[in-house]
Structures are given as structure tokens and as C-alpha cells.
């Protein structure tokens, strides 16, 4: 690093022409690809989907409105979680508890309405607050005791599953609708329905609204800058006056909130609460975030990328399903895409001189 230290500073030479500064660098094509990798991937998957889609009476099944509605409905729960996860990963953290927390939230929602006799709003409020608190506790433990979030949220995963099993007594809690004790308010069933001439799934609307709010928060608020700063360089952030601990705790509160929203949507879509649901959702969400171009090293990422990554994974699974390709191959295809995304990211980091 040290260049020759010979110039007597007393001489106060006016700024010399800069050494080896090179002309402003042209946009690195690789960086450009990585920046839009999830959108490019999405386009490729859609083109592949159209090309390989089975046809019926000349209609491309992949593009049938029902099929598209299916894709965006199927990804809405993991998508909501991935949105929250994006905040955490930008701070260079990780949250493994979200799938289990979705299960716990679905159980809580069903239990409160069916066995607790609570109305819709108290139930929703309680479940959302529980999710926020659960996440904030994990964030607090992680920052307070300087533990890797990987470990803390791994424990959180177990805790959430355990709590869900206790609350539900390991039973499906079916949600039936109506007025009176033991029945849920009929309006809750709307989460399983479609809007606008029975086209747009309500779950997808929740996902899109959540994504829009998250995009605004990340890109236009001071809070968003703080999140990037913590992941970009924690020590520098602290020296610059960023409230690092508070930000770290808050992002886990956000994933907790997201998991609770997803759990409520889950309960509404399937009309039951189940302690074992949401298993592996955390990994799908993390995959979507990484494919979306957000760096696991922190400090870089985008919400649009996460949304595109989420839909891309859903569309890919859908194309393979339409062609009756086994789930085993779906997993392998997803694996290949994750590796590709990670390799691209690493190449760009190398070029930018972040790795030596």
C-alpha cells in the first residue's frame, strides 16, 4: 500500500497532476449484467417458458392468465419474506427463522380467531406485533452479545417451531368462517380470493404493496441509507454517527414483521394454521434475494432485484411443472442459478478491488 514517502511536505507544492489516475472508467459490462441480473434472468425464464410451454388449442399455457395468476400467487408468501430479508442481507446479516415464524404466525392467527374468539383486527395486530417482537429479540441478542445472526436466528427457527407446536398442540387448526364462537370473520377469507374480475390474487396484492413500501423506505429515506451503511462498513458507519445497533435490531424486526404478514396470508389462503408450514421458506427467500443481486457481504442490493428474483424462481418452477419435470430437477436448476448469481457477484467484487 505504501508508496514512496519522500516529498518534504513543507514545500507545499500545488496539486500535482494526478499519478496514474486513468480516465474515468467506462461502465464495466459485467457490472451492468450483475446489476440487472435478476431482470435478465426473469426475461430469459419467461422466454424459455414461452418456448417450452405445452400448448392447448394453439394457446400457450404458460401465458394463460390463470397460469400467471398462479405463479404470482405461489410466490407471494416467500416474496413478502424475501422483501424483509433484503434489509437484513444488506446489513450483511441473515435471518433463518422466517419460515418457522411464518408457521408460528399462521398458528397464532388461526388459534386466536377460532379458539380465542378474537375479532379480525385484534388478531392481526397481535400476530404482527408478535412477529416484530420475535425479530427484535433476535436482533437484540445478536448485537448485545455480538453473536453471528446465523446462530441466533438458527436458534430462533427452533424456538418458533417449538412455540408453534405448543400453541397448536401439533394439530392443524382449521379456519371455518361465520359469525359466532369457533368461527373466523368471513372477511378474512378474502386473502384466498382474487380481485379485479377474479384475476389478481389478493396475496399478490399484499406482496406488491409490501414491496412498494419497502422500495421507498430503502431508496428514499435516511433509514435506508443507514441500512446500506451498516452493511457497507460497520466500523465506518459507527464512526460517522450511524446508530448501528438500533439499525441492526430494526432489520430483524422487519423480517419478523414480514414473516408475520406472510403467516397471516398463509392462514387466509389455505384456511388453516399449521406449525410445520413454511419449512425451507427462509432458503427460498435468501435465494431470491441473492439472485436479485443483493450482496451477502452487505452494503449493496435492491428491492426491485429481490422482486424479480422471487418471480423468476416462481416462473422457473412453473415452467418445469407445466412440462411435468420432477421437483428434483427444479431443485438442481435453482441450485445452478444461485451459484451463477454468486459467481457473478464475486467477479464484480474482484474487479472493484474489494477482494485482493
Amino acid at each position: 500500500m505504501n508508496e514512496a514517502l519522500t516529498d518534504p511536505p513543507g514545500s507545499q507544492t500545488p496539486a500535482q497532476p494526478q499519478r496514474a489516475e486513468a480516465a474515468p472508467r467506462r461502465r464495466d459490462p459485467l457490472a451492468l449484467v450483475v446489476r440487472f441480473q435478476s431482470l435478465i434472468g426473469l426475461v430469459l425464464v419467461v422466454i424459455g417458458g414461452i418456448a417450452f410451454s405445452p400448448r392447448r388449442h394453439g394457446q400457450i399455457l404458460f401465458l394463460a392468465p390463470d397460469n400467471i395468476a398462479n405463479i404470482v400467487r405461489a410466490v407471494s408468501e416467500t416474496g413478502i419474506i424475501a422483501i424483509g430479508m433484503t434489509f437484513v442481507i444488506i446489513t450483511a446479516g441473515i435471518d433463518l427463522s422466517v419460515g418457522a415464524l411464518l408457521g408460528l404466525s399462521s398458528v397464532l392467527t388461526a388459534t386466536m380467531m377460532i379458539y380465542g374468539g378474537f375479532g379480525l383486527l385484534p388478531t392481526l395486530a397481535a400476530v404482527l406485533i408478535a412477529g416484530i417482537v420475535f425479530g427484535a429479540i433476535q436482533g437484540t441478542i445478536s448485537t448485545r452479545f455480538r453473536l453471528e445472526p446465523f446462530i441466533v436466528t438458527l436458534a430462533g427457527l427452533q424456538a418458533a417451531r417449538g412455540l408453534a407446536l405448543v400453541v397448536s398442540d401439533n394439530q392443524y387448526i382449521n379456519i371455518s368462517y361465520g359469525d359466532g364462537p369457533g368461527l373466523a370473520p368471513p372477511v378474512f377469507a378474502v386473502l384466498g380470493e382474487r380481485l379485479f374480475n377474479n384475476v389478481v390474487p389478493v396475496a399478490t396484492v399484499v406482496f406488491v404493496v409490501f414491496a412498494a413500501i419497502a422500495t421507498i423506505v430503502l431508496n428514499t429515506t435516511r433509514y435506508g441509507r443507514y441500512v446500506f451503511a451498516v452493511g457497507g462498513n460497520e466500523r465506518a458507519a459507527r464512526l460517522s454517527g450511524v446508530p448501528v445497533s438500533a439499525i441492526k435490531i430494526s432489520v430483524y424486526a422487519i423480517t419478523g414483521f414480514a414473516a408475520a404478514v406472510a403467516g397471516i396470508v398463509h392462514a387466509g389462503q389455505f384456511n388453516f394454521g399449521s406449525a410445520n408450514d413454511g419449512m425451507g421458506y427462509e432458503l427460498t427467500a435468501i435465494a431470491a434475494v441473492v439472485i436479485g443481486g443483493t450482496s451477502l457481504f452487505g452494503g449493496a442490493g435492491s428491492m426491485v432485484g429481490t422482486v424479480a428474483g422471487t418471480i423468476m424462481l416462481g416462473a422457473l418452477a412453473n415452467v418445469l411443472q407445466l412440462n411435468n419435470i420432477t421437483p428434483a430437477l427444479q431443485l438442481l436448476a435453482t441450485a445452478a442459478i444461485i451459484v451463477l448469481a454468486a459467481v457473478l457477484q464475486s467477479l464484480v467484487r474482484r474487479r472493484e478491488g474489494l477482494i485482493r
Partner: protein
Amino acid sequence: MEVDGRPDKLDTIHASRRAGVAFVTDDRRGGGLMLQMTVGRNLVMSVLRAISPRGLMSKRLENEAVKRSFGQFDIRPRNVELKVGALSGGNQQKVVLAKEVLGSPKLLLLDEPTRGVDVGAKGEIYARLRELAAQGLGILVASSEMPELIGLCDRIVVLREGRSVAEFQGAVDEHTILEAAAGKAFHE
């Protein structure tokens, strides 16, 4: 410690910043910069609060702040969208300094301010620091480079084992400083 005549412990980063004390570490990659972020985003890091009224980032205030920084330090290339990691050591150091100066501190603490900085950028950084000092900013430099201290400082204090052992104002040569730093053992 006293700040403006009032006692203040300055025992946290928050307290120090509030009192107008800014610190530039000797380890800019480890504690100064967010390398994968743009020059612009790094520059405004210490004034985020001021440029985000009601929590919302103001593009106008942010651009003004960045422009002020570029006016003060000749950061090359003049491209706010470039990742800081892509700049030369000298220009990275200018970004770190510009970032802290932007926060209008009353006292600037610099640890090895020109470590790994090329000669041209060094001269420029010294010139800027002298200017800022002339404008009334207090600057405290810790350095192991004698020529740097001699050229830059109004007053040089030599510390040995945590205690002040000598103080120089005005002309002084490298040998004298080293002698004071090494203590009597140096003569024998």
C-alpha cells in the same frame, strides 16, 4: 475534558460528534470508507441527518453537500457515481477527509492522514488542511512521519509512553524530535 468551557467526557462516538469532534482513522479501508458504495454516498455519510429532513433524503441537499466536498478536495475522477473502491489511495483519503470536513467539525483528529497516499495527493491534502486550519478549524495530527509533522504543524508535542516530553513551535528538525521521542538513551 472541556468543550467550549463546559465539561464533557466525550466517552462515546455520539457525544464526541455532538461536541464537534471528528475522527479520521489511519485505516481508511477498514474504518473510513464503504468501498462498494459510490463516492457520493460516502461523502454525505456524516451529514445524513442534515440532508434528510423528516427522515426523507433530499436530493437537492445531498447534491449541494457533494458539490461542496468536490469544491474543497480535488477528488479524481470527478464522478460521484464511481465506487470508492475504484479510486487511488490518495483520492480515497481525500474522500475520507472531505466526508468529515463536510460535517463542519470544530476539531478534526487525524491519524496518519497520508498513509498510502501518493506524493501529488499528499501535497494537496496538506494544502487543504492548512487552509482549513487558517479558517479556524482545530486539527490534531498523529503521525510517525517527521517531515509531515514539521511541514504541517504549528505546534508539535512529543509523547513518550503516554506522557508529553517535549513541545516545539516554529522551526524544528527531524533529529531534535526523534531525540526527544527516544529520551536520554538516545545520547548515550
